[in-house]
Each structure stands twice: as structure tokens, then as C-alpha cells.
């Protein structure tokens, strides 16, 4: 059974190990510098592999349709998220907008875990979805800022404008965009041949390094949750659980319209369902300093990330095989 296989994959189990250790207040940690280095490695690896795969197939209309869908999802999902938060939770306009932005953007680690799960389930997927992931990082931030600053005092908007240059750099040139897009292009140029020489570093140890990284993610998620959950009411926590399902459903709908094969459908669902915890919080601290980081960090890293890793991904795989494989 796919779902159980995924749940018992070493990647998920190491995440669970970290989560449990943090909830029990273990003093252990994976040094931040080491984990960040591993994150750069993971992004290089999926970028290169995606590029090599893209070098083998033509860019047809379907690919551009998925690019468009991804950008549309990133712009649009925060609107739904904002409405849901304003209606159900007591969050302020600013906090709701900032949080909504996280759910339009993506979590690259969730994406990587989904690629791993697809491999276990033996479902093929396309390399260009790495590009879709990079394209979906940023648009959500624009929607979030628009939601927060619309009709606000001149003051706040002015602030945001003054920091525009810095914000643009932070958002368009952050590590994941630079490394993903860069490695994708390098993979495209290097092609199958060039990749072969790099494969011993980038293919073979991928799963193992992902395990080590997931252990750290579990520790982070658990600590975030332990420190932040008190500040969150029931409504925001519920939002962190149902919003990925809304995102995944819309992603799946678009994938069916475009006619994507099941593997690619799963990845588009995962991108829609996942929430950012690196690029978007950094942008929000810069542009909306009065927003409360403990709300969005706890939700995206402490609630939505574990949900997607443990339950979401198997669920999306199940749904996609039903929808596409029918």
C-alpha cells in the first residue's frame, strides 16, 4: 500500500524522530550551518536532475500551461487563504495577509519529499516541475502585500516602497530561486553526459542526505510548535490543516484540465498545498514588520509541513492515481 509505504519511508521516519525529540524537549540539534549547507545541496541536486531531464524532452504547450497554472496558483491561493483566515480566525488584517502569502508560495523540502515518495511508489514525473516550484515562490508575496497595504495609512505603504529594492532582491534572488534556476540551467547545458560525472554526488547520496535534513526539519517543526501553539487559537490551527487540502484540490483541478500525468499532478498538488517557511517569512519581516512571525512560522513549519509530509503526500498520490489513472 502506497500510503503506508510512504509513512514508513526512512525520510518520514527521521522527520518523526526529530519531531518527537523536540516535543520531548531533547537538547539535541543539527547545527544550523550544516543543515543550511545540506539544503543548498538538495536544491542543487533536484535542479540539476530536473535540468538534465528537461534537456531530453521538448518544451511543448503543456509545459507552458503548467508554468501559467503555477504562477496563477501562487497569485490566487493567498486570496482564498486570506478570506478563510479573516472569516474564521481573529487574526488582524496584517497577520492574515502575511500568513496567506505563505500558503501561495511553496516549501521546497515538501516538494523534495514528494519526489522521493513518487520514487518509492514508482510513479514517473517531469523535470520541468522544478522550474514551476521556482516560479511559484514569489507571486504570493505580491498578493500578500497588496492585501495588507490596500487602504492602509500612507505610512506603511511608504515604508514598503522605500525598501522595495531590498525586498525585490530578497524575494527574487533568495537562495532557493538562485540555486534551483541556476542548477536547472546548468543541468540543461550539461545534459546527460555532464551529469554522469556529477551523479555520484548528486544521485546516490540524495536519500541519505534527505534523511539527515528531515531529522533537522522535525526538530525545527517540533520546537516551533512547542513555542508557538499557545499563541494560536483553534481556528488558525485548523486552517493549517485544511488549507493544504484546498490548495491541493485546486492544483489537482488545474492538472486535470491541462491533462497532466499522475506524477506531475501530484507535484503540482504538493506545490499548491505546501506553505513557505523560508522565503516568505523573510519578506514579511522586511515589508510588514508589524505582522507577528510566531503566527505564520508556527502554522507553516509546525502544522502544515508535518501534515503534508506525513498525511498529505500519500493522500495526494492516492487522489492523483484515481483522477489521472482512472
Amino acid at each position, binding site marked *: 500500500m502506497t500510503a503506508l509505504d510512504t509513512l514508513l519511508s526512512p525520510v518520514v521516519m527521521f522527520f518523526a524522530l526529530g519531531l518527537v525529540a523536540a516535543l520531548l524537549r531533547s537538547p539535541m540539534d543539527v*547545527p544550523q550551518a550544516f543543515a543550511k549547507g545540506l539544503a543548498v545541496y538538495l536544491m542543487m541536486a533536484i535542479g540539476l536532475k530536473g535540468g538534465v531531464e528537461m534537456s531530453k524532452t521538448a518544451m511543448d504547450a503543456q509545459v507552458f500551461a503548467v508554468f501559467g497554472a503555477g504562477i496563477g496558483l501562487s497569485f490566487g491561493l493567498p486570496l482564498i487563504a486570506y478570506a478563510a483566515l479573516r472569516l474564521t480566525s481573529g487574526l488582524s488584517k496584517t497577520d492574515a495577509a502575511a500568513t496567506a502569502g505563505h500558503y501561495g508560495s511553496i516549501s521546497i523540502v515538501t516538494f523534495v519529499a514528494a519526489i522521493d515518495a513518487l520514487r518509492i511508489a514508482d510513479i514517473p514525473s517531469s523535470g520541468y516541475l522544478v522550474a514551476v516550484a521556482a516560479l511559484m515562490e514569489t507571486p504570493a508575496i505580491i498578493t500578500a502585500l497588496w492585501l495588507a497595504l490596500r487602504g492602509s495609512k500612507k505610512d506603511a505603504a511608504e515604508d514598503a516602497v522605500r525598501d522595495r529594492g531590498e525586498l525585490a532582491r530578497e524575494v527574487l534572488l533568495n537562495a532557493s530561486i538562485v540555486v534551483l534556476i541556476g542548477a536547472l540551467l546548468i543541468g540543461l547545458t550539461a545534459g546527460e553526459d555532464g551529469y554522469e560525472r556529477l551523479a555520484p554526488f548528486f544521485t546516490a547520496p540524495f536519500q541519505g542526505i534527505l534523511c539527515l535534513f528531515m531529522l533537522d526539519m522535525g526538530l525545527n517543526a517540533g520546537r516551533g510548535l512547542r513555542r508557538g501553539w499557545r499563541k494560536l487559537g483553534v481556528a488558525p490551527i485548523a486552517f493549517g490543516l485544511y488549507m493544504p487540502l484546498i490548495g491541493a484540490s485546486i492544483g489537482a483541478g488545474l492538472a486535470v484540465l491541462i491533462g497532466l500525468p499522475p506524477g506531475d499532478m501530484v507535484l503540482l498538488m504538493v506545490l499548491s498545498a505546501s506553505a513557505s517557511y523560508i522565503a*516568505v*517569512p523573510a519578506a514579511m519581516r522586511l515589508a510588514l*514588520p508589524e505582522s507577528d*512571525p510566531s503566527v505564520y512560522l508556527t502554522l507553516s*513549519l509546525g502544522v502544515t509541513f508535518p501534515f503534508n509530509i506525513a498525511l498529505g503526500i500519500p493522500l495526494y498520490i492516492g487522489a492523483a492515481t484515481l483522477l489521472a489513472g482512472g
Partner: protein
Amino acid sequence: MPLTASGNDKLRLELIIERPALRRAEDLLREAGVTGWTVVPAMSGFGGQTRWSRGTDLSGSTDMVVLICIADEDALEPALKRILELLDKRIGVVNVSDVRVLRPGLF
């Protein structure tokens, strides 16, 4: 001791601020004509209700830093007014104390 010579009295500004706001604070200082500062990374902190510690927040956006700046009162005063504005919506703590320096000409 040279420390008691006149002209040796300076102010020491200590600005404890979240890292994303650091560049803005530095720009303000530079615009106000302050000629130097040093930034030290913090590893954890507590503020009324919540504890943070470096490494838990992967985005680093809640990390705090400590900016230390030795300057003349004349240079610091205009900078401080603008930093107060900056801090309005930001997380941050600022304190100023009296110090003596060894090479007054530098500041």
C-alpha cells in the same frame, strides 16, 4: 591616564534588533553621518512572552543582532531620532551609555 582627558567622552549605542531590520538601521546611521559600528549575532532571547533561538526559525527572520556603535553625541543624536521611528513597528531595544575612548580623533 589618557582616558580622563577632555574629548574622550563618547556615547556607546547598543541596538538589539531583528536581523531583517539591520540594513535599514545601518542606512539610517550612515545617513546621519555615524562613521562606524560593529554587529554581533545573538543566539537566543526572551521578550515578555516568547523565547526565540537561532536555528529554530529556518528563515532566520526572527534572529536578533546586537549593533554596537561608538560615536559623538552630535553624530548620534540625529541618528537616534530616526531609529526611534524605525523601531516603532519593529522588534528592537536600544540603549545608550557613556564611555571613554582611547583615540578620540577616530570618531
